[in-house]
């Protein structure tokens, strides 16, 4: 960064004096509580799948994640998740539900530009990197495992 001049420094201190302090601790507590609440719902969904369908603790993860994303998409459509996001910040973005919110909010935002170029083209603007990362990581790991099995390192 370039060196600040004296007037810039004095302006900076003036800004700091008048700027409202960020309530970091309160934000953290809000994020913790809301994030924890989303996880409680997720756990309830997992237990539901274990109890009423033939999923074990190990295999119930995938349908639970899908259901939670579906819930988040639904709530985003009704405008509830946006408010939750404003209140809780990272608490609502970090759990997997943030993924559903990112997809649908982008789709709603670009709806006026048409369904193909607007919704279709921009839907994965935010969440696309997550999908690409997942697919690429899975491909890479599967390649490594296939090679290791082929050369007899693991069986």
């Amino acid at each position, binding site marked *: 960064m370039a060196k600040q001049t004296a007037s810039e420094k004095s302006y900076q201190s003036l800004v700091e004096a008048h700027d409202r302090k960020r309530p970091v601790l309160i934000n953290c507590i809000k994020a913790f509580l809301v994030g924890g*609440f989303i996880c*409680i719902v997720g*756990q*309830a969904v997992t*237990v539901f799948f*274990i*109890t009423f369908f*033939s*999923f*074990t*603790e*190990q*295999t*119930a993860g*995938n349908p639970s994640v899908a259901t939670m994303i579906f819930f988040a998409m639904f709530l985003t459509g009704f405008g509830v998740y946006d408010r939750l996001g404003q209140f809780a910040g990272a608490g609502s973005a970090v759990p997997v539900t943030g993924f559903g919110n990112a997809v649908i909010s982008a789709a709603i935002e670009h709806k006026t530009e048409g369904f193909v170029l607007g919704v279709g083209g921009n839907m994965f603007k935010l969440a696309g990197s997550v999908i690409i990362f997942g697919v690429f990581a899975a491909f890479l790991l599967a390649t490594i495992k296939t090679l290791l099995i082929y050369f007899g390192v693991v069986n």
Partner: protein
Amino acid sequence: MKKWICTFPLMMLLGGCAMFEQVGPSELIIHDTHEEKVHIINEKLQKSEELYDTIIIAGEDKILVSYKVHHMNRFHMKAIEKKIKKWTEEEFPNQEVDVSSDYKIFLESYNLFQSWEEGSLSIEEAQKKLDEIIKLKNELT
């Protein structure tokens, strides 16, 4: 809104308690040939401090052991499973013993145990149900 904030976590908390309810220890012997082995396994599991609820089911050629782990020991779940598996392999080298700490396997085992106790299952049906549970246990995806 405030009512919901209080009610929902309470509902979840009480619902969660149902998962930790102790129902065993139970033994189910479909084929009499394994009776002694089941008793030995049960005695061993009763002694271990990490577990608190066990169901052992002996079928024609397989024995299924399912148990619940005390909450603070859930971090060592894999190690506990490995320990029990190793012990059963050493104790009964010629017997196939499936060990599982999965809640679903426990639940299904308990359902099988209950309907067996009620007498609503024939040997073939119970054996078929046991095979289904073992198949479910080995599923990964």
